[in-house]
């Protein structure tokens, strides 16, 4: 049986790839700082890699009080093993109360493996994390059994149709993976320093060490759609790869970027990194144009937090109209090019006035 009292502190897996800290690490640090305040505890970043020590200061600037550094040549590129050994060893040695991991293609592999290894629960793809009581309301007559200062982890399920709040009351650490783009980073604190603790549990390759034969990077200079303020997103209704030109023109006129639905990626019209939705990226721009997108729940789950949603679709029953602030039933091929011209004209008029 674990002695739960021994477990202290909010820990963040500081994902790095090619010796660059991933944005999700900063987002998690921002959230960890908020969670640490009511618990009156510290924020620790766990940095795993090879020759990554110079990244510690970046983590400090985004809110880490302490960095546990596991640095070993075996850890150069991500592999489930030895990364799982590194993180599980840190958990067993330093006993965090909370362990946060990004819900990335790395974190969604590392998280489950580590949680099974240290025998605790893991809640996937969380969108809200807060400290509270479990049960939320004490059972009458059993008030003493209600646990306080628990991590309450809220996540969508069923393609975003239901939402559940989950606790992990009897095991430590309380582990969660968190969707990228949901938590807010803090403004970096220039010159901040963290205590650095170097820790190496030893790495002996065994049957679980796979061999990386080749790494192929997607060559791309595409800007991350998660950073865009305005997204002009197209779906199957756009009709062809060539016809995305009218969306690109609109995006250029309004100062936005093009994104797309899964159907577009499946058809090979646009690369996967532009995909919005449950199996793509979660975006929350100021304005989201959904053009020729029917609005499957998996797509909506990735864009419904946008401030303003404008939908153009010729099918008046398309589910996208259920989430759109402004829905226009009509032919995108006629409306979009005229809209582009109109916006150009409006901007020109404003510039001249």
């Amino acid at each position, binding site marked *: 049986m674990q002695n739960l009292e021994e477990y202290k502190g909010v820990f963040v897996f500081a994902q790095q790839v090619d010796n660059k800290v991933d944005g999700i690490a900063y987002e998690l640090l921002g959230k960890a700082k908020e969670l640490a305040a009511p618990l009156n505890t510290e924020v620790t970043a766990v940095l795993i890699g090879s020759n990554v020590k110079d990244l510690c200061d970046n983590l400090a600037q985004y809110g880490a009080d302490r960095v546990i550094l596991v640095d070993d040549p075996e850890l150069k590129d991500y592999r489930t093993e030895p990364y799982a050994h590194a993180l599980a060893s840190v958990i067993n040695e330093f006993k965090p109360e909370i362990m946060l991991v990004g819900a990335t293609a790395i974190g*969604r592999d590392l998280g489950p493996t580590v949680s099974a290894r240290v025998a605790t629960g893991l809640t996937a793809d969380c969108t809200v994390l807060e400290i509270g009581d479990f049960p939320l309301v004490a059972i009458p007559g059993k008030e003493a059994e209600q646990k306080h200062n628990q991590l309450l982890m809220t996540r969508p399920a069923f393609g975003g149709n239901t*939402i559940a709040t*989950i606790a992990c009351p009897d095991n430590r650490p309380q582990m969660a993976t968190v969707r990228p783009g949901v938590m807010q980073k803090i403004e970096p604190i220039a010159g901040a320093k963290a205590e650095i603790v170097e820790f190496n549990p030893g790495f002996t390759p065994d049957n679980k060490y796979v061999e990386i034969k080749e790494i192929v990077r997607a060559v791309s200079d595409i800007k991350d759609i998660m950073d865009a303020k305005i997204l002009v997103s197209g779906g199957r209704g756009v009709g062809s790869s060539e016809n995305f030109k009218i969306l690109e023109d609109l995006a250029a006129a309004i100062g936005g970027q093009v994104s797309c639905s899964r159907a577009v990626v499946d058809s090979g019209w646009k690369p996967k990194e532009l995909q919005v939705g449950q199996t793509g990226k979660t975006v929350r721009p100021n304005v989201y144009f959904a053009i020729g997108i029917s609005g499957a729940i998996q797509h909506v789950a990735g864009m419904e937090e946008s401030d303003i949603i404008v939908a153009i679709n010729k099918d008046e029953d398309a589910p996208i109209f259920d989430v759109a602030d402004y829905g*226009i039933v009509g032919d995108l091929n006629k409306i979009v090019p005229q809209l582009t011209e109109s916006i150009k004209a409006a901007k020109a008029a404003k510039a001249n006035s």
Partner: protein
Amino acid sequence: MKIIVCIKQVPDTKGGVKFNPDGTLDRGAMLAIMNPDDKAGLEAALRLKDEVGAEVTVLTMGLPKAADVLREAIAMGADKGVLVTDRVLGGADTWATSTTIAGAIRNLDYDLIITGRQAIDGDTAQVGPQIAEHLGIPVISYAQEIKVNGDKVTVKRQYDDRYHMVEAKMPCLITALSELNDPRYMTPGGIFDACKAEITTWGRADLKDVEDCNLGLKGSPTKIAKASDKVRKGAGEKVTPESPEDAVKYIVGKLTEKHVI
């Protein structure tokens, strides 16, 4: 070669999700289907069977009616089906589910285990890697391509901005993406076989090397504090303009009002 494919019966979300009057999901009104990522995993196993020869066993955990997806898998070309079902296993989270499935798999011979990356009802992507962890074998998740060469398997593993070609010695576990392939249809002969096929049914007593404290609702470290329908922002305005000009006027008007342009 022996391959185990883990599959799950899930409610179909295509064509919309149905709700009860009280706002809860109406699972009865939705078709129960084989989870799409799992089906891609099954197809990958069947292709290996076609190419290099393999015995493919499909395994599922669920209610007795989950036997339907095992029969569908056999109709597609799988050889055997195992259903793990028991009341004491109900309400399991991913820890208890993976413990249960690992306990069942310990009774079987295998070179390769294939699971789907994630199920469309829970979307956690946790059970595959956790089964591998319980069994002490390597896991390669997010597989876009699988090739077998002797006692080794080579997998194209997808990441956010790259892929790795990874080689592992079998036995190992692979989680499949639905982008991996287009699953084949059931064949008439296969459907005939599936009707006759005997499904092995296992309960708690058949699980090897597992403790009761790690099973079912009680053995689940994660507990649901609250579950509800997502409160969605309601629909805004919907207009059907007479002409594209009117449509543009409407949009520009709204964007100006909101200070976007």
